[in-house]
């Protein structure tokens, strides 16, 4: 559905993205992840036809973005980083305007207008002026604007920014529901969001792709060890020595002591889940086990690991 081939964009001497290639198939949700200034917005702007790449080629819905921009634009719904809203318009007037310039008319326009408003939770806000709306509602109008012409492809630049936690959950649900008949590219720097919504993630840093995979694979690929927290009661002096006999365990430390309760943290390596083995060891040692919980290396750790390999200075993205 979307094919980016060797996209490069220079702003003067600054290279915003450098040789970025990827593909998105129909119905997929792709996440673009990266620190500020990594080139997420630039990539999305190129795909949406806002400006062309300095080098490379982008095909969207079977059309070349540079050669047949109108065909592409008809099929793409785009939510820029700052929702492009006219403050003096009411929500309805605005959405009707956007729908018209996107090529919707007549009864189709009316049904899509109410549908987009329902989907984005704007049902009762139609008559309000956009400048009087809160940030969260503006973001929803921005989202409705991207959806209004039922595009095959949605390009959403940080769609959950500025929303409150409940709205974030709603928007994530909304995006998930859109997948299937819509192809979605979204950018974010909120990591849990990516693991929640996206089927595939591209991690960008300094304009280059440094990893492409599913969130699960990314976390397992990089070490994928576990960190296990135990709470035990009894004489735990021998516990570290006991657990270190297991091949997967790399380190054991007793962290906190409250009365007879002790908190032990165990670091493991490899993708094996050895919680049950540890539980058995603890019980066999005659200790009481109160709690056992494991944390897999999160996408957050992967992200930090991948993006801080070199010492870097954060660069501001030029607008």
């Amino acid at each position, binding site marked *: 559905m979307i094919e980016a081939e060797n996209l490069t964009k220079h702003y003067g001497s600054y290279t915003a993205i450098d040789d970025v290639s990827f593909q998105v198939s129909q119905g997929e949700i792709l996440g673009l992840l990266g620190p500020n200034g990594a080139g997420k917005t630039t990539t999305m702007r190129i795909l949406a036809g806002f*400006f*062309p790449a300095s080098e490379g080629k982008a095909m969207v819905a079977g059309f070349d973005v540079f050669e047949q921009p109108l065909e592409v634009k008809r099929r*793409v719904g785009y939510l*820029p980083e700052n929702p492009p809203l006219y403050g003096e318009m009411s929500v309805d007037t605005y959405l009707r305007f956007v729908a*018209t*310039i*996107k090529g919707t008319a007549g009864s189709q326009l009316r049904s899509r207008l109410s549908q987009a408003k329902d989907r984005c939770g704007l049902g009762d806000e139609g008559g309000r002026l956009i400048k009087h709306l809160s940030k969260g509602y503006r973001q929803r109008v921005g989202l409705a604007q991207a959806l209004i012409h039922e595009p095959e492809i949605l390009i959403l630049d940080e769609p959950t920014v500025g929303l409150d936690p409940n709205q974030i959950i709603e928007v994530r649900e909304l995006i998930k529901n859109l997948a299937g008949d819509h192809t979605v590219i979204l950018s974010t720097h909120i990591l849990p969001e990516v693991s929640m919504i996206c089927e595939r993630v591209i991690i960008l840093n300094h304009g280059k792709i440094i990893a492409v995979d599913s969130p699960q694979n990314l976390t397992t690929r990089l070490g994928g060890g576990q960190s296990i927290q135990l709470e035990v009661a009894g004489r735990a002096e021998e516990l570290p020595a006991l657990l270190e006999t297991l091949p997967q365990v790399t380190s054991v430390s007793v962290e906190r002591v409250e009365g007879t309760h002790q908190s032990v943290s165990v670091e493991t390596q490899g993708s094996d889940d050895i919680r049950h083995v540890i539980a058995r060891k603890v019980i066999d040692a005659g200790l009481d086990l109160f709690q056992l919980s494991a944390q897999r290396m999160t996408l957050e750790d992967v992200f930090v690991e991948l993006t801080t390999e070199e010492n870097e200075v954060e660069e501001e993205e030029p607008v």
Partner: protein
Amino acid sequence: MRSYRAIVQKELHALFVSPIAYVVLAVFFLVTGFYFFFYLTGVLDYLMQQGLQAQQFGGNPPPFDAPGIVMQGFFGIVSFVLLLLLPMVTMGSFSEEKKSGTIELLLTSPVTHLQVILGKFTAFMLFLFVMLTPTILNTVLLYVFSDPLPPLAPMLLGYLGAFLLGGSLLAFGLFFSSLTENQIVAVVVTFCVFMILWVIDFAAGTASTLTNETLRYLSVLKHYEDFTRGILDTQHLVFYFSLIFLGLFLTSVSLDSLRWRQ
């Protein structure tokens, strides 16, 4: 076509919900109305004196084209007020879109730059129409109460001239607005450029050298004055149409350049 109409509507809506449109209209009606009254009473006083003198010394008063003088004065002030006010109408046209990011919506929608530019330009021309139309009342009163009836041509052509002059101001206003995110810069540059074009023929000497002729030709006011005298010369039409075309063309180049430079 539907997109074009939607853009015209959007732009008119934006104009009429902002206070600028009302301030511009109020100032325009006030100033032109006042000057019309001022010219008319001035001319009537003069005629009265002439009449008295003629009575005292006998003979007829010299022939005097009162409506013509009033209309020329009136259109003179119209042109000046248009120069002051129209840059304010166009100043936000693109700079505001760039500043608020709505330009991203327009440029990622399936509309051509031409549709966007012509849509905005049409909306501004309609606004100019709204500005000029009520002043027809003055003209009609002057026409009806003149005896004998004055020739119609200077009045009609005066309005045509005002439209063309206003159109070139609006076209260049669009262009300068597309160059910047700052409305103030847009309005100041538009005003200054036209201020220079207004008086550029002052720089021309009396000799008929190529430079002098060119300077004289570039004066936007020189071309306008012929219209108010009732002269329809294709050279003036060509001048204003080229100016409007140039302004719109430069706007489209400037919009394209958003795509190369950034």
